[in-house]
């Protein structure tokens, strides 16, 4: 479900997140790319898979049942994905993809700040 709030968030992520290559909103229930700033469908699939499979790992430990991820990071040799579930938009995840040279702490801090701003937590 694309909304002006999501569009505004992606624009801010694309400009504020260090070394940002792409920003997107993904419906992790079906992997649909809800909105994008430079991201392709394949990136949406990666985000969905990250949420589904890390949830499964968490569930496997002590049979945790409340395992829905709030934040997921993926690091590769060339990219860093930082993803945040949006509380005001159930099932929708905002994600920013940066070059691997970006400072991870800064990525997380900016992502949390921008998401909190549009979610009304700031």
């Amino acid at each position, binding site marked *: 479900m694309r909304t002006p709030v999501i569009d505004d968030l992606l624009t801010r992520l694309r400009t504020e997140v260090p070394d940002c290559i792409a920003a997107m909103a993904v419906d992790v229930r079906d992997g649909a790319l809800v909105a994008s700033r430079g991201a392709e469908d*394949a990136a949406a699939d*990666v985000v969905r898979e990250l949420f589904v*499979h890390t949830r499964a790992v968490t569930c496997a*430990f002590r049979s945790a049942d409340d*395992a829905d*991820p*709030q934040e997921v990071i993926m*690091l*590769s040799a*060339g990219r860093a994905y930082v993803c945040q579930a949006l509380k005001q938009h159930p099932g929708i995840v905002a994600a920013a993809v940066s070059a691997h040279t970006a400072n991870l702490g800064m990525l997380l801090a900016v992502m949390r700040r921008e998401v909190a701003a549009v979610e009304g937590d700031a």
Partner: protein
Amino acid sequence: MSASPEVRETNRFDRLCVLLETIDELHAGQSGSLSFGSASQGIVLVQSGRVCWAASSMMPTRLTDRLRHACTLSEHSLQLIFRDCRASGTPFGETLVERGIVSFDVLRTALLQHNAETLLQLAGQPAPQWRPAKIEQYDPSLTFTSAELLAHSADGWWGPLAAAARDELRAALRDRHAVGLSFLRAPETADSIVPVGFVGTDDLSAREMLAIGRAAERAMQSCSAAGGRLVASTRADGRTTVIWIDDGAYYVAFGDDRSEMAFIVAHLSRRALE
């Protein structure tokens, strides 16, 4: 074409998982024995749900062989002590520790590897028969959980790689308050993963360890197209799961404290991004 020795061993490893799950679930907390085939073929003694002794007529290596390498006594001298212990009903390993012949840690490691590798051998046999019995004479610290046995069962042929994976796990977690697990990748097995180590918990079951390993493998496979080498997932309450792959092994860490886990991610990310 016949299967290679390694493939035959890994198929047996898959059966070991089933055997250990049997001990954990069908006989949870119970004491008794699992008898394989005829009485002389093999036996596993279980005390309060933990394996204390496993013996197989097909095992080429005996516990005394393992201990002989760790002490200065001759095989003959060890055999004499072993016979005395058997005649008097005294536990052999504890006797060696009491007499200062081996340290407790050496005994425990030798006993763990002996039991784990014997179970792996026995897992290739038809399903055993369970006989409840009153077994209470073993020192509880010399009995083993299914997860410990599972994590050491592959040492016979993957020992150096398994030891390296355990070292990597300990180095990554250091003194952080986290539970960690390590797995080797074995594409020829049904599960493609072989659990080889864990830290930070005493109450992990073989089933739980396998379930975590299988899920972690799927998670890393799912992001392999994007070159993913490390994934960290945090819940709203701060509890965090970190999965990473390094040098052919999978690792998983669970922690309750977001900041504690951030140290682990920071340490690992420097290498993941190299």
